């Protein structure tokens, strides 16, 4: 997989859709493509949020540990962006990410990601849009519970 393939994957992520190709290319280039074996951990719950990950190939499990043991929250596949909230809000990881299959992921470290967000207004707008949508979803769910 070359950087051109990675850019094609990035373009499919809603947050990056409106970005110029050159900036997308820069983001991919600044990232590190990493191959994980099945069951390898991308990051742990509670760890410092030091990077965002984009799944290029394969699937990962989002697992949360608590009093009741490990709970599988979701299984994410190709084109999924992971860990961006922790990076943007400077909060520790809220879940553990484990490779469900062999996985190829693009890792973009925090400094680079934040820097590109500052450089690219379209990306900042897309993040605002994404966060607003998530907030709206939460509100709707809360409202539905209240009924």
């Amino acid at each position, binding site marked *: 997989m070359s950087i051109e393939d990675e850019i094609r994957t990035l373009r499919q992520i809603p947050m990056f859709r409106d970005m110029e190709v050159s900036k997308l290319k820069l983001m991919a280039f600044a990232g590190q493509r990493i*191959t994980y074996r099945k069951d390898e951990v991308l990051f742990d719950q509670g760890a410092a949020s030091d990077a965002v990950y984009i799944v290029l190939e394969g699937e990962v499990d989002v697992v949360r540990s608590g009093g009741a043991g490990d709970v599988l929250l979701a299984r994410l596949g190709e084109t999924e962006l992971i860990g961006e909230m922790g990076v943007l809000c400077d909060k520790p990881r809220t879940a553990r990410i484990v490779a469900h299959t062999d996985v190829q992921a693009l890792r973009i470290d925090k400094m*680079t990601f934040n820097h590109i967000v500052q450089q690219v207004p379209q990306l900042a707008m897309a993040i605002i849009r994404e966060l607003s949508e998530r907030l709206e979803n939460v509100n709707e769910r809360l409202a539905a519970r209240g009924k």
Partner: protein
Amino acid sequence: MEQSVFRFVWKHSRREQIAILLLILLSLPFYWASLEIPKRIVNEALQGHAFQGGQETVPASAISRWLPDAAAGIRLDQLQFLFVLSGIYLFLVLVNGAFKYAINVKKGILGERMLRRLRYELVGQFLRFRPEEVRSVKPAEVASMVKDEVEPIGGFIGDAFIQPAFLGTQALTALIFIVYQNVWLGLLALLIVLVQSIVIPILRREQVRLGRERQIASRKFAGRIGEIVEGAPAILTHGTVPYSQAEVGNRLSRLFTIRADLFRRKFAVKFLSNLLSQITPFLFFSVGGYFALTGRLDLGQLVAVIAAYRDLPPPIKELIDWDQQKADVTVKYQQIMAQFGEERFAREGQPPDQAAAIAAPIRIEGLQVSDRLGTTLLEAVTTLIQRPSHIALVGPPGSGRSAFARALGRQITGYKGVIRIGDSKLAEMPGVAAGRLLAFTGADPCLFQGSIRDNIVFSLHRCVPSRDPAAADSKEERTFLEEAALSGNLVIAPGDDWIDYAAAGVSGPDELDLRIISVVETVRLQDDVYRLGLLGRLDDGASEAMRQSLVAARRSMAERLRSGDLERYVEPFHPAHYNANATIGENLVFGALLNGDPGEASLAADAQYRAVLADAGLLEPLLGIGRKIAETTIEMFDGVPAGDPLFERYSFIGSEAMDTYKRTLASIPGAAGVQELDADDQARLIGLALGYIEPRHRFRLVDDPLRLRIVAARSRIRDSFGGARDGAIEFYDPDRYMPSASIRDNLLFGRLAFDLPDAEGKVWQLMREVLDASGLEQAVHAIGLGYDVGPAGKQLDQRQRSAIDLARCLIKCPDVLVMDGLLSAYDPAEGREVLAAVRCAMHGRTLVASLPDGFETTGFDQVLTFQGPRVKVER
């Protein structure tokens, strides 16, 4: 320091000045004689006045009546008489030259010695400034004053008393000689001298004023240039290069105007001076000639007068120059002294007595701190800090906690109220005593160029070595020490040991590194030091056993990688395989360059290297790869401002070279392609290709046939460089220690995989274990501590710089440690660890920590909570 340059010179150099003056007096009879002899040559030898009365010969006593009897009786004919007189003249010329040489050398050395003293004292004066004054000066302005502005003062110092004495006596001798020959000609010469010495200084007053303006403008210009250099990243970030350059242009314009005026004035004065000195011979020829023709002056006297006058204008001119220089230098000296005035000094009281320094509480009474604009930063705090105790200062950023900490750390001394330790006022405590008692570390640490070790032990440099020049080991050393004493500098040699080992709690230099490492662990810098050590090389003095240990550790490392299922994280070097995680350049060279890594660009610029690539059929593919990299880099970084960190971290091409590469790409001719480019452009593109790593950069530019060709080219490079260049490359050999490769490369003998998760982290721990088991841990630490931090520590990140500053404070075991804003450099979790470790290290001593939000204050003996400039709560 003395406020008058003459007092300064007389105070520190009167003995030497008097010695040189005596030498000048000693030279005068010879000078007089050298004026007298030409007259005698003309009158007595050439015109034959000595041979009056038809004598064929005269006794030698006719030359001088002081000749010894044996010589006086020798008879000389006219030709012999001429040669003897000419020989005496030549001898006197040589003697006068020797006197001049000796006087000038002594004068020059005296000037240099005084310049050295002046600079030394100025730096000493600056280091006595109050902290607020230190912050208000521009470094480049101080540097300009100490280095450049005192230079002419130094030049003048050697001349201050000697020049007027030397030139004055010389001119006076010549003048008296002329008067002695003929009163009228003497008066004529005197008149011209008077005109010169009255009119020219008047004309030069304006020149002095302009010189002073030039000095101030130049100093400000140097200060501004310093600011531009320091602030270059901000200028580049905001794209304000034209503005900044234009501002420099304005200053240069002002300087130009002053300098142009100076030149006009200078050459006008020179014109007048030349005119006067050249008009005099005209008068001598005409008036003197008239006297000679009318028999009132003989020809010899006229020749002597003209010869004497030839010697008169230069001393007079130089005396006038000296007078101007005196005016100029006096102003310069006064101006510099004004900048280093005592009113800027910190007040110094008595040092605290030892017992009080150790145990007395810190009393803060009505402490109030304001900034330069009068804004209150801290409002009337009165409190008592018991010792030993640990005190936390908390409050939002911008509250009084930082001002409180800085006042306690002696970073601010111009406050109202008082801080006392025992009976001593903290602000007035002598610097050396305060340096022993307390340490301060803030958010803006100051590192010096040098190793990490040098920076950490900097705080221990307080045992002033004492040296006796008489006990020096060599003549050079003795001269060095004697000169230091003569210039009022400390009498020490460069390699002298200043370290206060007792303060660090060790018995000598052998234990120091261990102590440094323990402090480095407290500030959580040990992994950084170890990593830097791994990237360094064993020095040339490393023992063979140590080298062999490293080769053995390499085998052990390979074994541990295998057994720990970590083999895939390191791709080993193999002579017959392409290493995908190494650059193309590394794969071609397949070894370490003995003279250090010249970088891809230098290798590519080497015509011989490119010729080898061409022979191996690699030139075209590498040019193609370079072209693709250049195109993609230019596309990606288009619009990214110069100086942006992304450039530093990721770009193949520096922001400053972007335009050059754009031109290179634009000059590629259509169909013929990159091979038609000139050598420089080709070297640029090949340089990019040599730095390419497929798994890292992922442009899919290296395929299997190319890998094979690169591996095949290794032998050509070996033959070419290993033979013709006498082994410039040390090729990788799994069984040999590689002196020019880093410890990490020696140990791993391969490259970490770019595409595997946390390869460095996983292998790192293993590397540490293997090195520690091989007994190389200390060597790695020592190399890491020897890492050069760069100017002002710029080779390190903010966290590392802050950690070194904290380590520097801890190593001297201060009785009181004040921390302000330093922990912000760490991430919160690590910051908490560091605080706990520092508290542990400061157990039984006093710690005052200004804490960022989110830090626990449990366990502190006292907590001061600030809100705005006030202390809100005291627990």
